[in-house]
């Protein structure tokens, strides 16, 4: 089992993430429709479709892939998702500046940078029923596993589990931010759409890395 993946080898993960989002467009919109305006899938798929189109036309490594996704979201997707996920991917890409591979430590730093970008902009806290309720526990679980001496792959498995749990945790929350917030108590009982897309992204990222770690 390898402990690193080169950014070049990991490159396809950038488009794999997009593929998962596009595949789940309907699901994301449906979940958003329960408490919001039902366009989360449309917004996300539009951005990732554009990003994947752009990536299809060039060769890139994972850092460049994330930079393109971030750039596309910031440049072509308005609303909240553009800047929030745009910052997430841009800041992850920035944190990889100067690296040519991913390992347990710079992956943790990368996730932290992405999450910080989202919080910095959106000012959401855990419990507000947003994508932060996935990003924060996932990042924390990865960091804790790493601190416990687990290897990259095992830490990624911890991340996957925490991400899924984070998503599930939003079901019982009352939305405090975004459109769903105006529903107050009525927002309880359904998953959060942004948390759902965040989980899809993290699962695809982790799965992509695990596959390459195992293959090596």
């Amino acid at each position: 089992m390898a402990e690193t993946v080169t950014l070049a080898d990991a490159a396809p993960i950038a488009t794999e993430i997009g593929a998962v989002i596009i595949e789940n467009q309907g699901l994301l919109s449906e979940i958003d429709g329960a408490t919001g305006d039902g366009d989360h899938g449309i917004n996300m798929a539009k951005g990732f479709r554009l990003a994947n189109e752009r990536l299809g036309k060039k060769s890139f490594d994972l850092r460049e892939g994330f930079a393109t996704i971030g750039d596309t979201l910031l440049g072509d997707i308005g609303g909240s998702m553009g800047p929030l996920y745009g910052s997430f991917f841009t800041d992850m890409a920035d944190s990889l500046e100067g690296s040519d591979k991913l390992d347990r430590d710079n992956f943790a730093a990368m996730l932290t940078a992405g999450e910080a970008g989202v919080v910095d902009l959106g000012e959401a806290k855990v419990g507000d029923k947003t994508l932060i309720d996935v990003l924060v526990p996932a990042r924390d679980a990865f960091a804790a596993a790493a601190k416990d001496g687990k290897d990259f792959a095992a830490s990624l498995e911890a991340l996957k589990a925490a991400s899924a749990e984070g998503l599930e945790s939003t079901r019982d929350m009352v939305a405090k931010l975004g459109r769903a917030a105006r529903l107050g108590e009525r927002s309880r009982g359904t998953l959060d759409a942004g948390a759902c897309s965040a989980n899809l992204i993290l699962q695809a990222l982790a799965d992509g890395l695990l596959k390459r770690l195992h293959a090596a």
Partner: protein
Amino acid sequence: MNRVIDDPDQVTEGTLRGVLAAHPDLLVATDHPRVLRHAGDRPKGRVGIVTGGGSGHEPAFLGYVGPGLCDAVAVGEVFASPTAKSFHAAFKEADGGKGVACLYGNYAGDNMNVKMAAKLAAKDDITVRTVIANDDVASAPREEADKRRGVAGEILMWKAGGARAAEGADLDGVIASAQKAIDNTRSIGIGLSACTIPAAGKPNFTIEAGKMEVGIGHHGEHGIAVLPVAPAKEMAGLMLERILADLEFGGEDVSVLVSGLGATPLMELYLLYGHVDEILRAHRITPRFRFVGNYFTSLEMAGVSVTVTRLDEELDRLLRAPARSIGLTVAG
């Protein structure tokens, strides 16, 4: 809803094409397809004014670009914030070396995109400061005024800020005047029918026949009460009651703006204005500026909004200053 559109996903593009064709004297395209700039000289040696927001509110936002108003505008999809890069590009278009005042409305998406754009602009050495309109009294209680949405009151903010920039004030001065305009402005709307985002194809909220939603937002956001449709006189009373309680009016003169939300006939807007005028005067408040028309709309939503601005000498001067745009022209 039968519409005058082509591809529902391309309405914003089509609108921009038409606007540019109709008003080459007022607006020009820029390198960024979702940013328009005033057709005159770029602001040089003075503060630039930028605004932006989702489309579907026409003449807002692009209709308030012109001399004495905004210099550039970032245009979003229908009812969606423009992108961070659009705002960034608009900042570059409006920068004349003295900084840019970004005057926009308080919506989560706009807040985030403007924040990101300001970060990007900082890298270009463009100073950006913001005033965030929050004139909609119905969108949050007074204690949480920073959560309130910006609605038609933004027009007063643009007018004040634009006039101040034209006077040659520095960025602090422009920001102070725009902030003063919005701080002294309160709005409230009544929705009478829903509207449909063309790409969505069906309304994402409903207003029943015979009902009105008091305090509705510009995208159909829930108001404070759904009541049976009242006579216009009562509507005016309900709306002004909220506004006057919030504004702590002390006898000053005001500017009044009655805007249709899209599908309400002009005759009804005037009919409402008659009541608004009467009620204000009964409170010894004199409407010194009076605007009645479709100034800030929500696609084909039926309904109205009322916006009252408390005037002082400065605001009076700034509102009186010449301006020219699709939405508002003040003769010089």
